[in-house]
């Protein structure tokens, strides 16, 4: 039951974030279609009646596309690492905030943190109990949402 509810909410919210905030489209994929090496990992805790974390991994090319769209940067304009981390932090925050609507109340969101990924399997060292993991992608790269309980 929890798996279904959480999965359906992630399937709803991720394309909506792309549509509303980025003016772009993203579709669900069967599997991770690109390496996450040199990508970014966003992580946020949810505590209270439901205890766990939401993690979002993005390929380097995807997070660059998110930043270009959010900051309205042209192809030739440079972006810095802080802009890349900032946009993934905000996408992580929006994902967890909306997911919270289908979780038991009351729950509190932590402050999202973003780190650089140095290997292809971003969730290999996670000690959470997996609730769901969904892959998304478009021509710019791929993006995975992992939800786990503490």
């Amino acid at each position, binding site marked *: 039951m929890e798996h279904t509810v959480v999965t359906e909410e992630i399937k709803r919210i991720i394309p909506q974030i792309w549509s509303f*905030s980025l003016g772009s489209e993203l579709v669900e994929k069967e599997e991770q279609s690109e390496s996450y090496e040199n990508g970014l990992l966003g992580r946020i805790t949810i505590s209270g009646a439901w205890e766990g974390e939401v993690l979002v991994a993005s390929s380097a090319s995807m997070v660059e596309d998110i930043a270009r769209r*959010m900051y*309205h940067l042209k192809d030739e304009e440079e972006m810095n690492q802080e802009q890349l981390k*900032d946009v993934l932090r905000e996408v992580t925050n*929006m994902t967890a905030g909306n997911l*919270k609507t289908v979780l038991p109340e009351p729950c509190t969101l932590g402050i999202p943190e973003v780190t650089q990924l140095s290997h292809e399997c971003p969730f290999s060292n996670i000690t959470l109990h997996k609730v769901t993991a969904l892959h998304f992608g478009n021509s710019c790269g791929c993006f995975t949402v992992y939800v786990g309980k503490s």
Partner: protein
Amino acid sequence: MKAMIVDDSGATRFILSKMMSELGYDVVQAKDGQDAFDKLGDNKDCTIALVDWNMPVMNGYDLVCKVRAENEYNDIKIMMVTTETEMTQVVKAIEAGANEYIMKPFTKEMILDKMKLLGVPFEE
């Protein structure tokens, strides 16, 4: 017309600032609640403040409480623009003095609809 954008995300401040500029507003940006409260002293003529909830240093709810404790800011409309979605939290923000509430992600049309509800001016 002047608007204050309060959000710890530089990208969201950029997006909201662009939207509000297109609606005819001069924009003041703040990266958290404390930064916003410090800047309000020099910007008492703000028509509207768009305020995130989940921020370091001082969150949006605490900012609303602080602003509404000062009579000189009574005319500023406050719209929470946030991922904080629990109904109890929405009610808490409204009771503290927020005038409207909108969930992220948002579109320009959604912001505009809320501004119309608040009766604040804008240029089309």
